[in-house]
């Protein structure tokens, strides 16, 4: 056997070495880029979830409240009109009194001034109790076990946001109150529980982050997504089918094509200005209404549905069109019987991703007034579409502007809710595409 070490195949030449080195470098770049991207994603998720998850839990104070008939129902007739004259403040006093009595009854020693005891309970508590009584006047005269929201500072103390040290510098709370809160927790009066209200309650004012919820924003976003779906999908698909299958190929359609591509790249805030000018100033639709938001988002989503739909139609092999035309199907039959069903997975995916973008869009909504503070839930459609509402991304923006640190947690919690919706929609898109994808 001869010595093979100098065989040309066993000794890569300089050119081959350089090519291999280039490939290794390219792989290293790619790996670095992906690692960086993943690290950024993990960092983002960790920071959002660590800041936002506490929003799904809330500190509640539970104690018996006697619904004194003498204060709540002076006429003694359970007349709703008369009873409604008792304000939230009246109920607040009742709650403060009951809370002080409960502390005394449990025999808990504390250094909080008697007048300030009520500050440990959320300002929302009076309103909640009032709503409860007005909804069920039979409660008057009874003693009920009332679950009140704790004040944001007390809530923050149990979530680690507030410490004795920060409390000593905070005029809204004091170390004595925190010490009392600790004792009350040991006595079972205060507890941290799951907070479904975060998803169902409406927004609350600056001083009570503990009562703020996403209910109005979720409902508003839902209304808008439904409007976008009902308008953008049929219009977008019809426009795509016409452009792709029927329209003559000439300069005019070329211009339309270029414009659709450009529209998809127009900054979303520009659509907001358009919506403000057309729907609110010209058409006279109300501000902050889901109908206007939905229309603006429809305009924004249309090109984003048309482009993937046209791509999906283009991807249907021409042989299928030939086959259908060859047996005498008309142009429209060819499209509806064969081309559209084959393009459906792509259209669905494009639509869901367009909807997800619309759901997460905030800039155009700011311009049409959806950034307003909305306390009342919008009504049922179709009338409710004209009522003021909020939207999830705008609510997040709104909460990050607030002074109370409790809203930071709320905003992060809202981001989690938005992310969950987006992940669900994108997962649905992937699932539908896999399920209906056909091979030919």
């Amino acid at each position, binding site marked *: 056997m001869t010595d093979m070490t100098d065989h040309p195949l066993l000794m890569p030449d300089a050119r081959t070495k350089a090519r291999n080195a280039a490939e290794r470098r390219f792989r290293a770049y790619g790996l670095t880029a992906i690692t960086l991207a993943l690290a950024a994603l993990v960092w983002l998720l960790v920071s959002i979830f660590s800041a936002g998850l506490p929003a799904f839990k809330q500190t509640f104070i539970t104690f018996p409240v006697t619904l004194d008939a003498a204060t709540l129902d002076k006429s003694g007739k359970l007349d709703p009109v008369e009873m409604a004259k008792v304000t939230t403040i009246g109920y607040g006093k009742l709650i403060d009194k009951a809370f002080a009595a409960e502390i005394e009854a449990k025999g808990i020693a504390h250094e909080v001034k008697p007048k300030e005891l009520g500050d440990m309970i959320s300002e929302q508590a009076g309103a909640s109790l009032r709503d409860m009584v007005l909804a069920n006047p039979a409660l008057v005269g009874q003693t009920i076990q009332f679950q009140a929201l704790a004040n944001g500072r007390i809530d923050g103390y149990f979530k680690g946001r507030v410490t004795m040290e920060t409390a000593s510098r905070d005029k809204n709370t004091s170390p004595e109150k925190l010490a009392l809160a600790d004792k009350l927790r040991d006595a079972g009066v205060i507890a941290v529980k799951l907070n479904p209200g975060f998803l169902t309650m409406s927004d609350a004012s600056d001083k009570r982050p503990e009562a703020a919820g996403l209910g109005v924003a979720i409902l508003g976003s839902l209304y808008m997504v439904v409007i976008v779906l009902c308008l953008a999908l049929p219009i977008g698909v019809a426009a795509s089918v016409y452009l792709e299958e029927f329209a003559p190929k000439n300069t005019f359609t070329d211009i339309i094509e270029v414009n659709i591509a450009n529209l998809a790249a127009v900054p979303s805030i520009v659509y907001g200005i358009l919506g403000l000018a057309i729907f609110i100033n010209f058409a006279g639709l109300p501000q902050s209404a889901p109908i206007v938001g939905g229309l603006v988002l429809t305009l924004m989503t249309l090109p984003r549905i048309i482009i993937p739909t046209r791509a999906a139609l283009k991807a249907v092999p021409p042989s299928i069109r*030939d086959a259908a035309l*060859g*047996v005498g199907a008309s142009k429209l*039959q060819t499209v509806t019987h064969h081309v559209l069903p084959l393009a459906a997975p792509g259209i669905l995916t494009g639509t869901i991703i367009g909807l997800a973008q619309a759901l997460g869009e905030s800039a155009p909504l700011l311009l049409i007034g959806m950034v307003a503070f909305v306390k009342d839930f919008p009504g049922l459609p179709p009338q409710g579409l004209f009522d003021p509402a909020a939207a999830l991304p705008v609510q997040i923006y709104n909460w990050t502007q607030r002074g109370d640190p409790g809203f930071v947690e709320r905003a992060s919690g809202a981001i989690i809710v938005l992310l969950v919706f987006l992940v669900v929609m994108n997962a649905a898109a992937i699932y539908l595409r896999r399920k209906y994808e056909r091979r030919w």
Partner: protein
Amino acid sequence: MSVIEMKLEREVAAETIKIQARKVQVHYGTNHALKDVDVDILSKNVTAFIGPSGCGKSTFLRCLNRMNDTVASAKVSGSILLDGADIYDPRVDPVQLRAKVGMVFQKPNPFPKSIYDNVAYGPKIHGLTRSKAELDEVVESCLRKAALWNEVKDRLQSPGTGLSGGQQQRLCIARAIATSPEVLLMDEPCSALDPIATAQVEELIDELRSQFSVVIVTHSMQQAARVSQRTAFFHLGHLVEYGETGTIFTNPKDPRTESYITGRIG
């Protein structure tokens, strides 16, 4: 009427002109693809179009059922008469025409639907059947005519795209004849098939001749010689020679035909 007379009449009927094309010109934009083509296609005959790639034979075939309409840049002039009626008359609806002039394509292109639905599609959209039972009958008879019935009768609901290439092409033939066309156009129907499937399709073409006029475009001169009664040779957009298949292959008049057949141009 005597027996002889009847026989004569049948032979005459067999030799009637189904499609008469005169001075057909096709332009694709500035490209003059077909120049002054005159052809008479006889009924109950197989007519083969041969010629080198790009000679215009497929273009001409696609004129016969106006499939060229779908190409935006294509312009057809001259006259093509089907049973004496000009198929390019503005009153003619290409949709109706294509039900009468069926087409089978180069690459098998079944719909991504069940075998049954593939065949039933044409009769359905043209409203040719009145009941499900009648439709079932049409599907069965077409699949039988396409020599596919025995292979697929147990799985009519399975997708047509799951068949082998040769079976797919026969399914496409079944689909094309399901609208009871009078003419069947085939654009290189065997070019994507193996020799065994090709033989099956060729045998099928010969059987179909009894009911339809078949026009077939082919690159294989052996195939043209095997299946056709008449052959047309196209070259650079011109119809060079048209006549009995036997004459074309054994005694061509034009030197270009002779060089193509003997393999000197192409």
